[in-house]
């Protein structure tokens, strides 16, 4: 059901990511201000953008689940949020490294994008505990969808509030993603962004396929066991949705 196109997609994301890193190291010029350290930008910003879109996609699938009651949408929402959380950790780590490299501190409170990201990360970190602490699968899916919708709406509001709170004292690279970048940097950045997006979609589809296969297998095992009564359900609980 989810296997279709996976091979092409995997090859595409490998090609895009390898191409992006080749461009980062051999084509894009060193930043006049920050030198080599600025190249972490091609990893950090795509990670952040893809993670944010993933969170919002989780919210959209949450709405779809609430409207239709189709458990596949809940699974899609769960996997999108789960992958975005991992990418958010990557964003926070690379952001911290960049901050140390170019400003000399591991953490800067006057970098609003990074601070907003931390808040969003803290909020979404409650997603799995929330799922885990509701036993009834139907209710778990419904509540998780409601959470995903609220948190999805919170993301832009939070970015606005945090950005307003800071005085924007130092020159910022993050605002120049489109405008002031020279062409070679912009091309590299766009390839890196496309690569990261392709990686996200590939991983998303892989996990959906894997979860779906697991559920099918479990259902078949249960059917087989009905004959000889030897089958025992898997005692390990997880926060993942069940179908």
């Amino acid at each position: 059901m989810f296997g279709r196109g996976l091979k092409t997609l995997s090859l595409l994301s490998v090609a895009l990511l390898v191409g992006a890193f080749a461009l980062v190291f051999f084509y894009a010029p060193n930043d006049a201000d920050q030198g080599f350290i600025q190249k972490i930008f091609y990893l950090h910003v795509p990670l952040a953008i893809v993670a944010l879109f993933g969170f919002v996609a989780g919210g959209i699938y949450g709405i779809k689940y609430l409207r239709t009651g189709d458990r596949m949408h809940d699974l899609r929402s769960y996997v999108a949020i789960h992958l975005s959380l991992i990418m958010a950790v990557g964003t926070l780590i690379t952001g911290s490294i960049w901050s140390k490299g170019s400003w000399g501190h591991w953490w800067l409170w006057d970098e609003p994008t990074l601070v907003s990201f931390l808040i969003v990360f803290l909020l979404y970190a409650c997603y799995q505990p929330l799922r885990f602490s509701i036993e009834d699968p139907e209710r778990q899916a419904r509540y998780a969808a409601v959470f995903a919708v609220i948190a999805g709406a919170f993301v832009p509001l939070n970015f606005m509030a945090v950005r307003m709170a800071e005085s924007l004292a130092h020159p910022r690279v993050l605002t120049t993603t489109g405008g002031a970048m020279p062409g070679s940097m912009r091309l590299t950045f766009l390839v890196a962004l496309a690569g990261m997006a392709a990686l996200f979609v590939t991983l998303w589809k892989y996990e959906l396929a894997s979860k779906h296969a697991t559920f099918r297998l479990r259902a078949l095992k249960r059917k087989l066991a009905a004959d000889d009564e030897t089958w025992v359900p898997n005692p390990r609980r997880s926060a993942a949705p069940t179908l």
Partner: protein
Amino acid sequence: MRHAVAALLRKDLRLELRSPEAVPAMVLFSLSTFVLFHFALDEAEVSGNLAAGILWVTLLFAAVLGVNRLFVAEREEGGFDGFLLAPVDRTALFVAKATLLFAFLAFVEVFMVAAFAFLLLGPSPWAPLPGLVLVLALANAGIAVVGTLVAAIAVQTRARDLLVPLIALPLSVPLVIAGARATAPLLADGGAGALEGRWLMTLGLYDLVFGLLAYAIFDFLLED
């Protein structure tokens, strides 16, 4: 819908009057927090940013106590089933509970701000009072809406008391940013500064977005 909201509000207010639970706890908690802040900061008087920060952190933590208790009676005494059996709009429960939380917060804040002015605040509290009331009212609306949503989510989980602060605190970061920035000049040393319109706008936008969202989505938390 208005009758249902009024009936639910009456029930909750009567419960709280007959056996006060949430409100006294919130008031006492904020008093202890002020004492803690006094010793932790080793300051006899605070003003400006520090005063605004202490006030907002205390308010938020006190609000979490109220949010934790908001739906407990409904869950333990079967109030949810009773409500679902009644032929009324489900949003009525949300409106009633959010109004109740707003009223609790307003009531607590009367004592809280008085105690704060008495115990910790350096400058006189009278000049900034109208501005403070406006900011607190806008923030209360936001806390009431988000708190009701979080309470309704958390009350059905096993880790109820754990989840409420974990979800509610990150969600209220925009409120704290706008509230603290707006009140800091009000509480500044040497006379109250002006109230900045953009923070009021931020608070209003927050209330509006989450109010509409809650209105649209609350029904799903009751469906059974």
